[in-house]
């Protein structure tokens, strides 16, 4: 849920409470006010009637309300003394409406012509149900208007206020270690956003620095390893060539050379990986994968024959991609090598190229699906495979990631299947861009 709607939700609930409470208070306050006004009116009326009754005795005999809103009864002196002015709410049958209607009733007593009279005056009062209904309607309207105005304010004002925040968010989303046109802080006068600016900037700067120094260290380490490796291998070669070794010693020398060779391959693969990740393969061209497959199928023909593996290239379409040619070739070679090396004698490899990508499907020495999560990781080996660097598929993933290709593995009917497809729908690492 967006922040905008979130605040709206809370505001709407709390506004409802506040307005409800206010309505109750307002209602009783209103009633009180009305009652006082009515009572004042009754008092004034009483004085008017009493005054008139002193002169007009005919008034004194109206002992029914009838069409008037007062009634006068003669009472005894003792009773009259005890009468105090009382106001009360009561119901009176109104013939006109043929029902009982709520009224305000004032009971009092007065003296006229030395006789004592009781005076009852009624006044119509406010209809509570009506009041509540109208109050409710008004409040509902007010509530609606308030929500609408908040919505408008949110949309127009808050959006503007949060602009720096969204700007920062976009920057973060697009931030990639190593290849940043450095982080640009948002222009804002809001204190919180300024702090966010500063924190982000120092955090990203720290990360970039660490990354750069790590990267440099990796590269230098790999680099510096080349020379001692070269010296070791070459010296052993010269030693073996001298021909003065016993067979046993020579075998040992051979093993050492092989160990150094794997170190060399590992080192090269790591260098390649870091170069891919640093995007040091700038040169791009339109690469047609069909051509690469055709050529490699020929190049690998001898090896395939030797391992008794049949290869089949199905070109359902042409897959083209703007990328570095050497990397495209490495991508295909690694997958193809993988399919050959992990195959069984008499097995098959089926390559299907479509317009949007390609699949490589092969019979394999493993009859169970492999772990897709782990297989693209560095140094993932499913068995103790000698000579394998365990980096082949990691390189595949790095190249795929660089060019927004998806790399997926699946298993079905005894066949392992690697799929490379255009459109970045997830090597798991790449973040989707909105």
């Amino acid at each position, binding site marked *: 849920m967006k922040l905008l709607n979130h605040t709206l939700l809370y505001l709407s609930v709390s506004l409802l409470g506040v307005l409800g409470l206010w309505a109750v208070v307002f209602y009783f306050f209103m009633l009180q006010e009305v009652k006082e006004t009515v009572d004042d009116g009754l008092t004034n009326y009483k004085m008017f009637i009493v005054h008139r009754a002193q002169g007009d005795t005919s008034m004194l005999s109206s002992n029914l309300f009838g069409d008037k809103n007062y009634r006068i009864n003669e009472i005894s002196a003792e009773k009259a003394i005890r009468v105090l002015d009382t106001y009360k709410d009561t119901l009176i049958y109104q013939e006109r409406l043929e029902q009982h209607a709520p009224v305000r009733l004032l009971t009092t007593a007065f003296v006229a012509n030395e006789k004592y009279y009781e005076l009852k005056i009624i006044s119509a009062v406010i209809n509570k149900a009506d009041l509540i209904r109208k109050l409710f309607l008004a409040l509902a309207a007010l509530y609606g208007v308030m929500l609408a105005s908040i919505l408008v304010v949110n949309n127009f004002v808050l959006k503007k206020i949060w602009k720096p925040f969204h700007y920062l968010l976009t920057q973060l989303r697009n931030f990639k270690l190593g290849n940043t046109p450095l982080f640009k802080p948002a222009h804002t006068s809001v204190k919180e956003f300024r702090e966010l600016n500063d924190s982000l900037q120092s955090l990203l700067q720290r990360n970039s620095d660490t990354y750069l120094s790590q990267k440099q260290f990796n590269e230098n380490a790999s*680099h510096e390893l080349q*020379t001692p490796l070269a010296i070791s291998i070459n010296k052993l*070669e010269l030693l073996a060539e001298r021909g003065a070794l016993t067979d046993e010693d020579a*075998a040992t020398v051979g093993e050492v050379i092989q160990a150094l060779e794997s170190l060399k*391959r590992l080192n090269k693969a790591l260098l390649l990986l870091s*170069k891919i990740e640093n995007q040091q393969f700038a040169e791009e061209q339109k690469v047609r994968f069909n051509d690469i497959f055709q050529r490699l199928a020929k190049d690998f023909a*001898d090896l395939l024959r030797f391992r008794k593996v049949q290869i089949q290239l199905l070109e359902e379409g042409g897959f083209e991609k703007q990328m570095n040619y050497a990397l495209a070739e490495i991508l295909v070679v690694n997958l193809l090598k993988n399919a050959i090396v992990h195959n069984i004698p008499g097995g098959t490899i089926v390559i299907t190229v479509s317009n949007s990508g390609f699949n490589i499907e092969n019979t394999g020495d493993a009859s169970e699906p492999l772990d897709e999560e782990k297989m693209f990781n560095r140094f993932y080996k499913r068995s103790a495979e000698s000579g394998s660097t365990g980096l082949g598929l990691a390189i595949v993933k790095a190249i795929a990631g660089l060019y927004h290709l998806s790399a997926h593995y699946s298993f079905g009917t005894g066949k392992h299947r690697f799929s490379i497809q255009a459109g970045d729908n997830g090597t798991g690492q790449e973040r989707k861009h909105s």
Partner: protein
Amino acid sequence: MKILVIEDEPELLGVIRQSLQKEHFLVEEAPDFETAIRKIIAYDYDCILLDIMLPGGNGMDILKELKTMRKADNVIIISANDSLDDKVQGLNLGADDYLTKPFHIAELNARIRSVLRRKAFSGKNILELGNVKLDLDERTVSIRDTPVAFNRKELDVLTYFMLNHNRLVLKTALAEHVWGAYADEANDYEFLYSQIKNLRRKLNEHESSLEIRAVYGIGYKMQVI
């Protein structure tokens, strides 16, 4: 044949010198930029091995100097830097070849032989050893003047052996040379073994005077019987 090795790492310089001397080359050394510049100005070499990162300067500048003297065509760059840019720049400056450290002695040997042959025979590019003639341009082989058919990989293997005859060629070096970047699995050696078996069979069938001998089980050596 005079070869100049421009390399600052004394140990590496040492093994390269030893290997080249086995081939009866005259080896001169330059461990730094200054010495290198002095030597290339003063003398002519049949081949120059050039390291890029040197104390006192960059090997690329030496290459530029060589280019202005029109002597860059016999240069083989040996660099620890496997970057494409360096390779492209080096070759654009007229270097003949680019070899990434670490390399096998047999590989270096083969590359030097290629450079020298290109210099020596401006016309036909033919390797001749014993009674075997290998035309590198036409990619044909004749034994005792009779053409013999070899497939691509067999031809590559044969060429490599002929360029390195009497030298120990490690299995790994051979696999790497023939398979290039694809050679990265130990079980390729079985395949290599079958290739060599085929090669031997063909050489025998046509009564060639060349023999491929296994050495200690770690490599092979081609000899003229």
